[in-house]
């Protein structure tokens, strides 16, 4: 019993409980936006159908384009629609809110807390992602599976690995958007950088077209960049295109990018918080 109490009071456990609660808050918060969720599901589904018919035409002309058969290509489309909101493939998520807090000076309130700014927002964003995976991911995926012939795996462990890969992709996505959000300390207005981020994320995550379709060096580079961790890697894990060491390598690719970008975010945060001051008070 005493050991249990000691464990419960350990700083790491305390921190886990705090950020767990923050994540739960992020989840519940987004669950209150019911109209937005319904509209999002509708948009994702419609967008999915448009892309699906485009892909069918494309793969009819060029079978095995990018190494995918038609069913796999269509699966890629619907995985993309399912992950659009959770992995924030078009930007969005939380960075507009962080930027607004920086602009207005409200970020001072966040800094007064005995909590870490990056971990706080990360936990919050993971909560949001978890809600949106359930709230905005399942329905478009099911709609796609009903309307088209998809190449979905039957093995449970493939789905579990897919979820792990999605989680890592969401961390990478967060880490990138945290950098974008913190840029507001210098730029004050985040709109420009948000647009660039949205465009880059859409193109380099594979949301428009799988990265394997891009030719030559451009395709190779795109697959090595962190955005690939947000959709390309999880989709390929679900499609069973990575096995054995290749699978471990794909997950490691995501994890390494996640860690590196989180570290960059910490460094940027250290510099940024020294600037906090100037905006009003």
């Amino acid at each position, binding site marked *: 019993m005493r050991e249990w109490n000691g464990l419960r009071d350990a700083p790491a456990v*305390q921190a886990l*409980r*705090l950020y767990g609660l923050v994540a739960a*808050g992020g989840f519940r918060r987004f669950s*209150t936006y019911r109209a937005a969720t319904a509209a999002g599901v509708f948009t994702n589904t419609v967008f999915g159908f448009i892309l699906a018919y485009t892909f069918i035409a494309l793969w009819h002309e060029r079978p095995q384009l990018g190494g995918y058969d038609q069913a796999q290509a269509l699966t890629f489309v619907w995985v993309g629609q399912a992950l659009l909101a959770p992995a924030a493939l078009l930007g969005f998520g939380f960075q507009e809110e962080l930027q607004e807090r920086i602009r207005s000076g*409200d970020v*001072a309130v966040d800094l*007064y807390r005995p*909590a870490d700014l990056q971990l706080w927002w990360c936990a919050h964003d993971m909560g949001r992602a978890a809600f949106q995976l359930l709230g905005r991911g399942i329905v478009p995926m099911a709609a796609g599976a009903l309307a088209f012939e998809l190449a979905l795996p039957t093995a449970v462990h493939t789905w579990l690995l897919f979820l792990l890969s999605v989680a890592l992709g969401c961390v990478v996505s967060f880490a990138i958007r945290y950098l974008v959000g913190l840029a507001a300390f210098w730029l004050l207005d985040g709109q420009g950088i948000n647009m660039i981020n949205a465009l880059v994320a859409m193109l380099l995550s594979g949301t428009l077209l799988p990265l394997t379709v891009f030719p030559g060096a451009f395709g190779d580079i795109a697959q090595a960049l962190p955005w690939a961790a947000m959709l390309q890697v999880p989709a390929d894990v679900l499609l069973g295109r990575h096995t054995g060491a290749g699978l471990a390598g794909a997950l490691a690719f995501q994890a390494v990018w996640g860690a590196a970008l989180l570290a960059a975010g910490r460094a940027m945060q250290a510099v940024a918080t020294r600037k906090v*001051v100037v905006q009003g008070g």
Partner: protein
Amino acid sequence: MIEVEDLRKVFAVRRRAGRLRRTRHEVRAVGGISFSVPRGEMVGYIGPNGAGKSTTIKMLTGILTPSSGRLRVAGIDPARERTRLARRIGVVFGQRTTLWWDLPLLDSYRLMRRMYRIPDDRYHANLARCTELLDLGDLLEVPVRQLSLGQRMRGDIAAALLHDPEVLYLDEPTIGLDVLSKAKVREFLRELNADRGTTVLLTTHDLSDIEQLCKRVMVIDHGRLMYDGDLDGLHAVGESERMLVIDLERELPPIDVAGCRTVKVEGPRQWLAFPAGASAAPLVAEVAERWPLVDLSVREPDIEDVIARMYA
């Protein structure tokens, strides 16, 4: 509890000077202030916009590092151990909120409990107390965005107190509140200070907050401490005047009595200003003897006028 010695903060600001050139300017936000606040005192900290109030508070909470000077809050150097200090202080901003906008009030309190590692019994006792004194009973399950400003403010104050902070910084806690809400907040703060001995530093533009809550007041302007003492002393320093308003039987030329000056005449009513420190009795006696006096009243100096004169 709070010790500040020769505290300074200088910001470097770049200004545009021509197409590409930028020149560096140094802006002195706080220029060498010293004060100390003993445990359990409630101090008003006032000054016009841009005087350096917020900069001081930011240094006292550790989110801003002083350029020079010595600073201790509860024995802790704020900038060095911000997180450790954060567990022992509470901060309330009238214009900002620490509460979770889209979620019920209680969710934010549960978060505070984890964040500040509040023991279960303390948490429940403090929450019950705040709920009762701040009238939050019906609001705990309401999403914060649906609360009125006054309700939200009370919610924010409770959030800052659940972890029994030794020092509480209040920045404009009554801004935008109606008379009733203001009274409620003030009453609560008074009780908190009396019962718990919480040290309170109160920043406000509403000087009636100060008059009702603080014995001691510090005035800052242009980054310097202009006054530090009790409220009465402020009147003496500010050379404030009291006003004797007299109603005569009929319209007469301005009254001329030694020790005061007639500032306004309006029909049979005249306004006579005299130093706040002087007694009104001899003045009243002389006026009554030499002029046909019908009625009179004495108006106490307005602290706002006093302060305004100090800034001038």
